[in-house]
């Protein structure tokens, strides 16, 4: 439990919106030391996201470079009103990874462990309480396991409908409607 608490704390630290907003604001003013601090704070997390999607370390690190070049160039476009600077940074990384995947991706090989949901999904801890994170995990809980697996494979591994269909051995049409319906349930649950 102590380890879980430790990593939870690190995540909360990296996710501190006010700090990230301040750093992005300084980046928009061409402050390189703020850029360095932002990199130190979020690059390891973004690399984890990219590795999960791209699998290859070299490729993920190349894409991480693209991401930070873009962050420096677009820092002024981050809209503080929309909030959640970490979500903005993650989205930049994920979209770049999706663009890189498009075209040349070798035939996908998934091992069993990647098809399993991680324990956090099934058991939102007491620490999640009424948090936004807790709400998302609770809402995911309400989706039937095969459908939920589609969402997780698409989001975390960056799989297309076709790739999910092959990985799970289900028809393409089934996967498409599972994804569509589970996204609808998620939205209804998050904002009843």
């Amino acid at each position, binding site marked *: 439990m102590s380890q879980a608490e430790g990593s939870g704390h690190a995540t909360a630290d990296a996710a501190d919106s006010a700090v990230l907003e301040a750093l992005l604001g300084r980046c928009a003013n061409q402050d390189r030391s703020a850029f360095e601090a932002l990199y130190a704070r979020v690059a390891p997390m973004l690399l984890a996201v990219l590795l999960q999607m791209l699998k290859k370390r070299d490729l993920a690190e190349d894409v991480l470079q693209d991401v930070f*070049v873009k962050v420096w160039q677009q820092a002024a476009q981050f809209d503080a009103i929309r909030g959640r600077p970490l979500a903005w940074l993650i989205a930049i990384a994920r979209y770049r990874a999706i663009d890189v995947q498009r075209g040349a991706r070798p035939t996908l090989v998934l091992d069993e462990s990647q098809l399993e949901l991680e324990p956090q999904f099934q058991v939102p801890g007491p620490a999640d309480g009424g948090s936004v994170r807790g709400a998302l995990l609770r809402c995911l809980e309400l989706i039937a396991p095969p459908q939920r697996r589609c969402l997780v494979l698409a989001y975390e591994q960056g799989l297309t*409908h076709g790739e999910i269909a092959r990985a799970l051995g289900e028809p393409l049409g089934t996967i498409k409607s599972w994804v569509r319906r589970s996204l609808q349930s998620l939205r209804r649950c998050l904002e009843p």
Partner: protein
Amino acid sequence: MTYERPELLERLAAEYVLGTLRGGARRRFERLCGVSAAARVRVHRWEDDLGILSARLAPVQPAARVWAGIGRRLFGAQPARRSARLALAAAVVGLALLVGLFVREQQRTHLETLAVLGPDAAHAQWRIERPHELTSLTIRTVGPVAPGAGKAYELWALPTGGRPVSLGVLPVGGTLERALSGAQRTALATSDKLAVSLEPPGGSPTGAPTGPIVIVVDVIAARAG
């Protein structure tokens, strides 16, 4: 296809963020987001919600080459690369130019000690050096450095009558060359002292020291000429 229907917009936004909207449909939706606030609002909401799944991953430390590459792409060549390129150009142009550049390069790379940092004179931890033209700092780790878990040492210029200006996080080992911004050069030029504070990893999030000041030392005056 019309994008006006809210339920269609919602589905496209969700699948765009999830990543299952691909190819031409993905690019068309990106273009739509450029002109439609309704599309952007939906995308941002999904990014905020699903981003939580990414934030729980165990972080992976990138190789040092990643940061170096970002610096090269955004701020130009690193000094070592630049001198290599200068030498190559010189070889093409001619020997006379080569000699000229060599002399200039020697002047550029000749470093003077700006300050020696440590808790006291007998326990130096870093030596800060500057080229004659104050465009960068070379920071050499010369003694044991242990900021403790989850902490970093940050270097500050203390300009006379002004607020401390960050000169970046200090290395825990090895030598680091750091280019100076205009603001950092101005601050250093009017600083009689440098300070080191204990900060979160990556340095102070606010632009001012947030942790205890652990070292304050005098700047060694640059030799004239």
